[in-house]
């Protein structure tokens, strides 16, 4: 009985001890987490560090905003540049004849005829006259005229050869440009057309048309000509 009694007392004492221990542990844990339990110095240090970080963050935001603004301006400029460069590319491709084009213009037809001679130099002259009259793109018998286009006679001067391809009548020269201006330009007195019609009696037909489609030419790269900055194009 006596023995039981001290056992009970001991049990109660242990229970109380356990309770106290766990309480102490919990409080201690909360203290570590909670700022309220930190020392003044620790808090001051944390506050100071946060302040420093704050200014650094503001600096970063400022930098990034500046960068973004520049990028936005750049994007606007780039968009404008992209449009301008795309137009320029189209223009130069048209100039060298590397892209097909369409537009209003003039069609000059020289039908087959036995009486009057119509030679390669006449075609060279007509094309030249068309450029002078403001033609923007020209073709001869379906071949786009470029800075490489040439016309030569064949061996017996019975036909003309355009860049190695023999052409035959009817010869059709097409030019894109303002139709009326083109016709007026090539019809000047004692010009090539005037000479061909009145002097050599070549049965030329000139027709203004609303739409002409000209194909692209095969533009060759340079092999001999080099630029100062870059070697010949490949």
């Amino acid at each position: 009985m006596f023995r039981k009694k001290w056992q009970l007392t001991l049990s109660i004492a242990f229970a109380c001890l356990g309770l106290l221990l766990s309480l102490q542990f919990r409080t201690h844990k909360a203290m570590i987490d909670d700022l309220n339990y930190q020392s003044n110095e620790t808090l001051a240090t944390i506050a100071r560090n946060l302040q420093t970080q704050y200014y650094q963050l503001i600096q970063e935001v400022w930098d990034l905003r500046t960068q973004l603004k520049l990028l936005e301006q750049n994007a606007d400029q780039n968009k404008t540049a992209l449009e301008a460069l795309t137009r320029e590319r189209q223009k130069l491709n048209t100039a060298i004849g590397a892209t097909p084009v369409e537009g209003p213009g003039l069609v000059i037809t020289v039908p087959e005829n036995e009486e009057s001679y119509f030679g390669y130099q006449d075609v060279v002259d007509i094309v030249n006259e068309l450029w002078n009259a403001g033609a923007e793109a020209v073709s001869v018998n379906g071949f786009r005229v470029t800075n490489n286009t040439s016309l030569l006679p064949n061996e017996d001067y019975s036909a003309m050869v355009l860049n190695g391809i023999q052409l035959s009548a009817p010869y059709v020269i097409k030019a894109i440009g303002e139709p009326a201006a083109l016709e007026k330009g090539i019809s000047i007195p004692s010009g090539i057309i005037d000479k061909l019609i009145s002097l050599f009696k070549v049965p030329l037909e000139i027709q203004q048309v609303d739409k002409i489609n000209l194909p692209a030419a095969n533009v060759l790269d340079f092999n001999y000509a080099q630029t100062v900055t870059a070697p010949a194009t490949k």
Partner: protein
Amino acid sequence: MKLEKWHLSLTLICLLFGVLFTSNLKTQLQVFNPMAARNKTLVTVIKTQEEKNKELEAEIARIRETIEKYTSPGSIQAELEPIQKDLEKLKILAGLTEVHGPGVVITLDDQEKARTARDPEYYLIHYSSILYIINDLRAAGAEAITVNNDRVVSTTDIRCAGNIILVNTHRLAPPYEIKAIGNPDLLEEIVRTGEYTSLEFSKFPVSIVKRDNIVIPPYKGSYTFNYAAPPKEGEK
């Protein structure tokens, strides 16, 4: 003896109990101590600051994301590059850059007789001679041609006004110097089969010289296309 043993245990427990209790009490008291109260202000400062910093960090993340969009491939910047590359090449082919290379230099001059003859027409170089020689040079694969340093391009026109020859609407005066870059031998060969030989035969002071390095200036005129447009989609 037996009694003393459990006595000892109880004493020990009581001791521990006492220590823990005081320690616990001390901790509890700390919550309400005046020092902790003063820290409240500091804690508020810290919490506010943390909040602000968090907002800034979120802002930074947002801006960085936007910046990413501007610099990623597929942006305009990336589109620009191939066009610029194309243009570089196109400018060369369109005669907009100075070029140099081997070729020939042809000079054509009026005849002395032109000054005294009653009919000088026959002793003057005409635009057509230049035009045909250029045609021959093109046939020989000339890559760059100039007449008196005026670059000949696809749209170049050569004509005359009275006795004056105009190339790209620029007035030229004799002697006319035609330079062409290409295969010198081929250029000379083809040129000699055409107009050049006719002029030589008619006793015009003409010459053709092969050169290792000819410099040809860029085309200074315009390319204007108001009527020629790329064909619209779906049309042939």
